[in-house]
């Protein structure tokens, strides 16, 4: 079973790679990285995330 799954993993890995290349070619990855950089972990970890409308603190 593990051997069969590993074989299908190669197909999925290839498909994943193709879609990721397509996405990166259409989207500016630096903007995405900037969006990830805005992730406000402090706000997410606090209970205030349920009561405040935005993540900006």
């Amino acid at each position: 079973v593990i051997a069969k799954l590993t074989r299908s993993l190669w197909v999925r890995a290839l498909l994943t790679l193709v879609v990721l290349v397509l996405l990166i070619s259409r989207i500016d990855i630096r903007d995405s990285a900037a969006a990830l950089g805005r992730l406000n972990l402090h706000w997410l970890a606090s209970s205030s995330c349920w009561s405040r409308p935005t993540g900006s603190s």
Partner: protein
Amino acid sequence: MIWRWIILLRARGTAISASSAASIYLVSSFVGGYTAMAGDAARAYSLSRRTEQGSEAVASVAVDRLLGLLSILVIALMGIALAGSQMAENSVGVFAAVAVVLVAGTVATLFADWWIRIALPDSWHHSAVGVRALRVADALGAYRGHRSAIVAVSILSIGVQLLRVSQAYLLGVAIGIDVPFSYYLLFMPAGLIALMMPISLAGFGAPQGLIVWLLQPRGVPQADALALSTLIVLSGIVGQPAGAALLFLRQSTSR
């Protein structure tokens, strides 16, 4: 998610402890390459080896997965009730088709013991394949007699999916995406189903593309949508190292 499966196993009296079931679940999720369907196959195989009840193992995993898919459908219905006016016209037809397939699939699964005897030619009933198919169908049909377990698992499934949608919403808000929760109820079911399909590795790739596409009608910049989809995928991976650790420990002790 593990507890859902344990409820189903206990309803059928499968002789396995909660810790062993949890271990199989976590290791199968890891071995399955981070995709629900491949993990399901590994889970059914591991349980059948442990209990020597192959048909019961397959039935428990199939019922668990179907109820999980139905709970996603319930979430989508909530989304349509709250934000249906934001749906594109052609997506209504797609949703209706998926809903019909899911409901029909669940009914067919729970009544597999009835229709398989009609569909399978009599001469096949005693062949090796026929006997195996009938055993699995009987194990699936037996869940009709465990309504309280089915209801409990369904409620837990809806709770799990609501948590996943809430998680996506909070991650979106945390990176500054201004989309109401009701729209997440509408688009995340499609994203969750894509994450389950064996079309990606760990959820990267196609499911991310789908989430980016589904957020476009709300005017979310593609870069932000890609960042959100990456966070959704990464948050799903956080629980996987437990399965890897258990697999490593199991292999170390068997040497």
